[in-house]
């Protein structure tokens, strides 16, 4: 187990009793495996010059995105971060279209207009991925306002990192949501680092306390075990949907790759990455499934199917056309 970080009390839940629905968890495993494979493919394509600019990969953090998405329904809306490929895939954004977007192709989910950091897919409930730290919190605040006012019963979820805890957006929006009692769930993916800097060295006091001081129910969870994430997500969305106002979840997680493509992660203390890899959410879930009686060969089969699926996406994506240069209209008329 990784050493607990200063200022947080990761509450790893007791893993008692079998998972309630093994088939469901196999599906969630498949989704997490798809995200991991997608990120590895994007990295590989990036190194080959097929993905441009920069990318922020979420390898290691899959359980948070998939766990939360698994409890959301059609009424809900999600605002994600520039580390958002996993959030998008967890919500069901078409894998081929997302890959094509990374490749800058006309067939991309945003026609090649967005790229890695700015993906939007309103039809998939994804308001968007926000390239400005904390922007997702603001977007979810507004979405929650609309969902509440229109009487939809929907909940808005914002993902953001530990770095966003020091942005004005967090404080202003959480206060706004609380006084308006808006149905919003704020999910802080605490991966230990804001870009290249350890969060403890730039963050005063425990993260969760910042929500608690506004009397917003808050919890810190192990973000590497998806069943823990699912349980917390269920508590959070139930609270928000039931008219209780905002809910805050700090999910302790880790990214297995650098902040962005140019980051080799030299700031990590020796051995830290290896210790966290032992808590890889894919390994954690796999071990749990096997312990609860799932045949290892079925999980191996999922791995193989996802690998084949991504190989096909890669081939198709690289064959897809680039968009033709054209003039864009400035305004909707």
């Amino acid at each position, binding site marked *: 187990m990784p050493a607990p970080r200063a200022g947080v009390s990761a509450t790893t839940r007791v893993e008692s009793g079998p998972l309630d629905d093994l088939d469901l968890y196999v599906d969630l495993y498949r989704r997490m495996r798809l995200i991991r494979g997608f990120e590895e493919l994007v990295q590989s394509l990036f190194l080959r010059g097929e993905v441009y600019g920069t990318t922020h990969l979420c390898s290691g953090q899959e359980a948070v995105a998939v766990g939360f998405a698994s409890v959301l329904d059609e009424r809900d809306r999600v605002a994600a971060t520039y580390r958002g490929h996993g959030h998008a895939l967890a919500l069901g954004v078409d894998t081929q279209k997302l890959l094509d977007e990374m490749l800058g192709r006309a067939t991309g989910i945003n026609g090649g207009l967005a790229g890695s950091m700015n993906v*939007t897919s309103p039809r998939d409930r994804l308001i968007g991925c926000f390239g400005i730290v904390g922007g997702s919190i*603001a977007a979810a605040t*507004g979405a929650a306002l*609309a969902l509440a006012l229109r009487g939809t019963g929907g909940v808005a979820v914002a993902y953001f990192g530990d770095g966003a805890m020091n942005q004005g957006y967090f404080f*202003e929006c959480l206060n*706004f949501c609380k006084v308006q009692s808006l149905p919003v769930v704020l999910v802080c993916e605490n991966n230990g680092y804001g870009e290249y800097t350890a969060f403890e060295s730039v963050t005063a006091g425990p993260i969760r306390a910042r929500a608690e001081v506004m009397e917003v129910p808050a919890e810190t969870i192990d973000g590497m075990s998806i069943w823990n994430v699912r349980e917390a997500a269920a508590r959070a969305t139930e609270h928000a949907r039931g008219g209780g106002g905002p809910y805050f979840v700090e999910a302790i997680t880790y990214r297995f790759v650098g902040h962005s493509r140019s980051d080799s992660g030299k700031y990590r203390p020796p051995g830290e990455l290896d210790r966290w890899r032992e808590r890889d959410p894919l390994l954690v879930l796999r071990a749990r499934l096997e312990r609860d009686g799932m045949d290892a060969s079925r999980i191996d089969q999922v791995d193989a199917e996802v690998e084949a699926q991504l190989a096909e996406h890669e081939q198709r994506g690289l064959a897809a056309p680039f968009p033709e240069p054209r003039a*864009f209209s400035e305004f909707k008329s």
Partner: protein
Amino acid sequence: MPRLSDSMEEGTILQWLKQPGEPFARGEPLVEIETDKATVVYEAEADGVIASVLVPDGGTVRLGDPIATLSAEGVEPASTAPPTARPAAVADGRTTDFRTAIRDALDEALAADDRVVFFGEDVAVAGGVFAATPGLFEKYGPTRVFDTPISELALAGAAFGSAVSGLRPVVEIMFGDFLGLVMDSLVNQMSKYWFLTQGEVSVPVVIRSVVGGGGRFGAIHSQMPVSWFTGVPGVKIVAPSTPADAKALLRSAIEDDNPVLFFEHKRLYALESEVDGQRVPLGEAAVVRAGHDVTIVSAMRGVHESLAAAETLTASGVDAEVVDLRTIRPLDRATILDSLAKTNRLVVVEEGPLTGGWAGEVLALATEGGLGDLDDAWRIATPDSPIPYSPPLEDAHIPGAERIASEILARLGSR
């Protein structure tokens, strides 16, 4: 009855300090009024004459009811006089002041479409610090009209997020100077979303904000932030000069599917005119005075200064045309070029810093599209310095009718 305290609903005339027919200068005490809080001496906002006293000493009237009619007759227009110095259009038509026009437009928009919501700091229960939005909270309730924390980031973010989730929010940013805090939501989110979603989801947000100098608010509550935004594709910028346009353009802005910045000049709030209910589309300038010798293009309060300058210039035989832009992005290229083709001379009057201002953009399009028509073209704007507080310094800072008229005479004479 002028608003002399935030909470007053009526006032009592204690004593008129000027009598009918008696001329007064700007700043001279006119009348002593008792409000719910204090006794206040109300000073003239411009030179003029009291035409008639409607409420005698001792009389009590409700806020907004006329207490006297004023006239500028026989008095040289003061170059820095705010537009309120114009004689109120007391003729047959019902007049409305600028702030009431804003309120009425919001009222109609809220009534017409239940997706419209209105929020901001002190806008609901208090009715706005500029008293532009009273009564809306009472009429539409706290889910559609509400007060927010003093949190411009949250306010703007909530506007964006709710606009892409089915609402049509109107928000008030109390002073335009605070728009720096709104920049991220506006520039990085609102203006990009329709593009990024390939036309699937637009962002119908209106950000109302009070701008401009002349209120003695100093360097950080008097700015004209228009040019902070003119370089942002995807954001419309509306800048009305009259109550009728304010109402019509605010209705159009709320019905528009794009993010719109709607600027209200703080020195125009008391301006009265007839509001005929005509609709005005965004992006259309208006020729508010026809002339042959020179085209003056301006917006907001600058239009009134330009009109006053044009009147002064008639004495020198110069016949100026005045174009009120009304919308600053997108600019009404055709109206500007048509006027230029007629007059061959163009002066753009911008309250706002000279460097990087929209006046330069107007000159650029005139040069690109009307070079053959162009005999002369220049800008009159505020200096590239912060806005000073002290009245004589601030008055000298803002381009007024006198400067506009004298520059035009000098340029025309030197040809």
